């Protein structure tokens, strides 16, 4: 029972961490290596608004999310647009931005274990003899709603359809009058906001620390590689695979190996099916 409950929770948490990265790459083909840093930054921004400036929690969250989105757009408009299409340069540039954000936060005094955000709902319930706190249940619910929202958004709104068009075939989208750079900018802003949303949901479970940025980036990359770069539905499925694998590893092999699962998943995927479960990149080469 505990494997099922905490497997689902862990999977949704991984999916939340990875969705922003998957979305940005899927649409703009830019691997946003500043993803983890944005996650941590949004946590600290919320902390500043709520704890230091005494802003209402919900208002603090909204302002932090908007700022995170704006930062994502600025990152694309002033840095990534110049290197778009050059994979290595995109990685170096985005990673450098992430590094600057994380080390800047550390330099600015955001260190230690006392930066925390309050949970949305206090308390816990017992499900089949297994205690689960309400915040984790909320994470699952919001995670499911978010995936549903993303599906509806990309199927029934003009921007969503344009984003999907870009993701499917950028040249064809251009011919239909969709501005590639504008859509990539929107995707970047949206992806960063998703990273921020994940932070706001997950960070109240523990504390906000700079190191989490590197960890979130690795988890997001692992999920996206297994799911297939560019496919956010693949990312959701991969989150469940890795999430359950981590819990099973903890139960049957020991928590010691829990962190290895994500890295092992990357290696196995790259050996057996480099395009991932639902990836389109390199799929043709693999078939040939």
């Amino acid at each position: 029972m505990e494997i099922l409950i905490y497997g689902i929770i862990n999977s949704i948490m991984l999916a939340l961490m990875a969705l922003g990265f998957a979305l940005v790459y899927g649409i703009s083909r830019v691997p946003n290596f500043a993803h983890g840093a944005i996650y941590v930054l949004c946590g600290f921004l919320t902390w500043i608004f709520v704890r230091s400036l005494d802003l209402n929690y919900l208002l603090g969250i909204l302002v932090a999310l908007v700022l995170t989105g704006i930062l994502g757009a600025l990152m694309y408009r002033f840095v990534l647009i110049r290197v778009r299409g050059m994979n290595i340069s995109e990685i170096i540039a985005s990673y450098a931005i992430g590094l600057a954000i994380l080390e800047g936060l550390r330099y600015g005094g955001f260190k230690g274990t006392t930066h925390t955000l309050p949970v949305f709902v206090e308390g816990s319930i017992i499900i089949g003899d297994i205690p689960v706190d309400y915040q984790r249940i909320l994470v699952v619910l919001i995670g499911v709603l978010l995936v549903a929202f993303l599906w509806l958004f990309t199927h029934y709104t003009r921007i969503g359809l344009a984003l999907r068009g870009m993701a499917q075939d950028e040249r064809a989208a251009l011919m239909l009058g969709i501005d590639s750079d504008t859509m990539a900018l929107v995707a970047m802003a949206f992806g960063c906001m998703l990273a921020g949303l994940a932070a706001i949901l997950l960070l109240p479970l523990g504390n906000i620390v700079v190191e989490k940025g590197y960890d979130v980036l690795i988890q997001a990359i692992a999920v996206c590689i297994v799911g297939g770069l560019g496919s956010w539905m693949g990312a959701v499925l991969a989150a469940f695979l890795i999430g359950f694998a981590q819990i099973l590893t903890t139960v049957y092999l020991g928590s010691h190996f829990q962190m290895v699962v994500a890295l092992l998943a990357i290696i196995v995927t790259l050996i057996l099916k480099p395009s991932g479960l639902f990836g389109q990149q390199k799929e043709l080469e693999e078939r040939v």
Partner: protein
Amino acid sequence: MQTQNRLILTIVLFSIFLLFPATGAFSAEPIKIGAPLSTAYLYGWDAERGIKLAVEEINAKGGANVAGVKRPFEVEVIDTRDLEPGVPVSEALMAMDKLILEKKVDFIIGGPVRSEAALAAMSLLSKHKVISILTTGALNPKYHALVEKNYDKFKYCFRIHGEAKWLVKEILTCLMEIKEKYGFDKLFIMVQDVAHARAAGKILGKVAAKKGWDVTGMEVYPTGTGDFSMGLIKVKKTKSQVISIWMDMPESAILLKQWYDMKIPALPFGSTLAAAEQPGFWEATKGKGEYCLANVVNAGNAPSNATPWTMKFYNAYKKRWDIEPEGLGSASSYMAVYVLKDAIERAGSLDPDKVIAALEKTDMEGVYGRIRFNPKSHQVIPSFDPKEGAVGSIFQWQDGKRVVVFPKSIATGSIELPPWMKSDK
């Protein structure tokens, strides 16, 4: 006219030079202390504050008297980053190299903080013949065992704070007190995947089993682990009553929050538990860490009256840094500077061999009891009695305060249970 003015100025300056020769307190060459610390982490920054506070106090009184010349201390802090995930030992060694070769420090006080890095740095200290007093983080018993085994090579290495074996003894004694008071006998061990924690967890498991404890399990968590639910469920299923935690990673706060939210009926006992040591922990967790026990290794890192110097240091630290001493490394780093000053003054020189001999003869009442080094292993001599040796300190969070509950000689309160736990007696 201009030439005359210049002549007058020269005469005035020359007179000042003759009247006030360069024997004043701060005209002498400073004694440079290098402090290699992982400054982004509690065990790094609190050590830095401890060292700086002691240096400021000593310098305010003129500095150290080296063969009749008062010389001030100067501190050079460098970030070793060795507490970060992945334990980047090479970075810590490069930082040590920089301190010794570029900054040309006379002594090292502080880290490296992580045991792996501290052990690796021992050869470097021997190579350059630089005396180091380890004051924070590194708890691995191998450190002083190596000094004892190969004295001639590693005689430059001293450690002034507690080490894992002694910590295990303290924790076991405290566990026996818990057993005596509440009738508990089931222990679950959770450790971080780093050298000192793995070693200490294993030793504690073995020794506790011999003392009648049923060790129900041991989980090893990689640095950076963000979820402890499965381990806590194991604790609950095995009906464990005490969880021994050895973690200095920030994520240990998640463990304590989960423990509270899941209402796990086992007392969290942090043997090293950085997250719970800080005074800000209570506010950060909104009281969810109440009843958590934490070992801050030496008295003075939490409020007590171990010696007359303990609260004097505690209050001076609070006044200087606007926060109470936060955990392991505060009192010992502060004390190390005073111990070094004392040794230099007795040696009358900065010569490493003379200072080593003087350090080995150290015997002074410090912040956390009588400070003496084992002359063979250079490990500070520990005790449960501050009159006999360096005394430890285990506190429990009670109503927003860090109440020292062990050892009895300095305790200001006793161990209490959370409302969802019952005594077996």
